[in-house]
Structure formats: structure tokens, C-alpha cells
């Protein structure tokens, strides 16, 4: 693995007092919400992370900043991954959209919006992609009832 590149990325990103941990060929960086778009632009344009792998969220119900929004990036040239995490609160679960940098972000952000309710500022199309119109709530939040069903077709009998 090209940990040399990840070390350079770590030095660049950790310069502003952020936590950056390098383990098992993956660099994980925790950063403030406002720095997300600029950091991703640096990753893409200066370090060649040309593939946006995934965006998802983690629900920590006991925490004030309840959700971690987690992004994964990959360099197809150097074969290394970077994980970016940023914390958002339940009352304002919003981060910048990465659609200006990666076209595929448009679809992955829709899934994260479906499942966790994270809003992506700048993504003009946040329609349901796996769920359906009329679905109430966000099923991957930990307070969503496990056995709740929202059928579109009325049951028989």
C-alpha cells in the first residue's frame, strides 16, 4: 500500500488541529463541518482521489452532535482510501453536497438522505431513491421502530 501518500495527506489535513489516524491502509480524518468541501477539493485536485466511494452516517443517539457523516474516497492511481468524518446535530443535520466535485455524489447523497435524514446543501434532487414517496421517518436511525411497516398496498382481509 502507498502509505507514503497517506502520510502526506495526513500532514496536509492535520495541520489545523484535526484528528487524523492512519491504520490498515486507510486514513481517517475528523474535521469540522464547514471545512468539508474545501478538504474534499484538496483531496481530489492535489492528491488524485478521483473516486468517491460512499457517503453514509452513523447515529449516536446519546451524543449532542448526534450524527457522524462519513465519506470514503479512493485513488485509482495509488490504490489508497481516505475516510472523512464530520459531526452534525439532530436539529441541523446538514452538510455541503459534493455534487460540484463528484457526479456520483448526487445518487449516494439521496440514499443517505433517505436512511438518516442528512440534508446535503447544494444537491437539488433529494427525492427518495431506495424508499418511496410518502415514507415517514428515517429507517436507519436507531430510534426508528424495527417492526414498523409502511405498506403502499392495503392488506387483504
Amino acid at each position: 500500500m502507498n502509505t507514503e501518500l497517506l502520510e502526506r495527506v495526513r500532514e496536509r489535513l492535520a495541520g489545523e488541529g484535526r484528528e487524523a489516524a492512519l491504520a490498515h491502509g486507510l486514513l481517517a480524518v475528523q474535521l469540522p463541518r464547514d471545512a468539508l468541501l474545501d478538504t474534499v477539493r484538496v483531496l481530489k485536485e492535489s492528491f488524485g482521489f478521483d473516486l468517491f466511494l460512499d457517503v453514509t452516517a452513523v447515529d449516536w443517539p446519546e451524543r449532542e452532535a448526534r450524527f457522524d457523516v462519513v465519506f470514503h474516497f479512493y485513488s485509482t492511481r495509488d490504490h489508497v482510501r481516505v475516510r472523512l468524518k464530520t459531526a452534525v446535530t439532530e436539529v441541523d443535520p446538514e452538510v455541503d453536497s459534493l455534487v460540484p466535485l463528484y457526479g456520483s455524489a448526487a445518487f449516494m447523497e439521496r440514499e443517505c438522505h433517505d436512511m438518516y435524514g442528512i440534508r446535503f446543501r447544494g444537491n437539488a434532487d433529494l427525492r427518495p431513491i431506495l424508499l418511496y414517496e410518502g415514507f415517514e421517518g428515517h429507517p436507519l436511525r436507531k430510534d426508528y421502530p424495527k417492526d414498523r411497516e409502511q405498506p403502499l398496498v392495503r392488506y387483504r382481509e
Partner: protein
Amino acid sequence: MNPGHEKTGAFEYLTTRKDELVGWARKFSIFPYPFVTACCAMEFMSVSSTMYDTDRFGAALPRFSPRQSDLMMVVGTITHKQAPILKKVYEQMCEPKWVMAFGVCATSGGFYQNYAALQGIDRIIPVDVYIPGCPPRPESVIDGIMQLQDKIANARHPIVNEKF
């Protein structure tokens, strides 16, 4: 001529119930509609192959229009998002029609006990035969077809559809 040797009429006949006659014909004339959504499709392909020869039961020709079929095989998981489509396709089938729940996902949702999966297709359409298995073996499917044949043979077959 000897009047004692008058021949009886050449016509011979037998009697049966109309329902038995029609049922016998229908049970060997099943056109399956594969409503295939998930990995049970692999097993549907197996049971449709020459090794298992469902033409022995008159049920080998899949039709890919609901209007040309009378047995809907629901093969795989049905989500709530998919449920209106399944119901609409079922309503497009002509009478008489039967439904086979192929595998545990169509029967009960299988191991998908979650926000998205329909817990059994019999919640929205009537099911005639349930086939267990994840996925079911071809022998289980053939057993299901034979049970459906018994059901058809013993059912009533009205000339005028009583549901209209």
C-alpha cells in the same frame, strides 16, 4: 329375421362431472408467469431446465405477459415499493388464475424482517401454493406444482365466472 337378435345402438357413452372434465384439462395446461425479483430465480432456472422437465406437468412454457398466463410464480423478495406492481400484474391476469409463493421470501419475507420487505405476498394477493426453502430445491417446486394440480383437479370450474 329373428326379432330376438335385434342389435342395440352402436352409440356408447360415459358420464362424468363437468368440473372434473374441465379440471383434468386445466391441470395439465398451466402457463406460468415468472414474477422474478431475487436469487430464487436461480432455482427457477434450474427447475425450468431439461433436467427436471416440468413439461411432464404441462407447466413448462413461461409466458411473459400476465394476459397469457394462469399461474403466477412469485420468485424472490417483494418490497413494499414493489408491492403495488405485483398487485397490478396479478389483477391483469385472466381467470382462472393461481399464485405460487416460491421460497421463503415470497412466503413470509424470509430473513428480511425490516422496514422494506413485505412479510409475505399473501398479505396483498391470494396464494394457492407455498413452497418452502431458501432457495427451494427443484424437487420442492415440482411437489408444489403437483399439489396445485390436485387443487385444480378437485376445484369447481364454473362456466360463467361467478366473481363478476
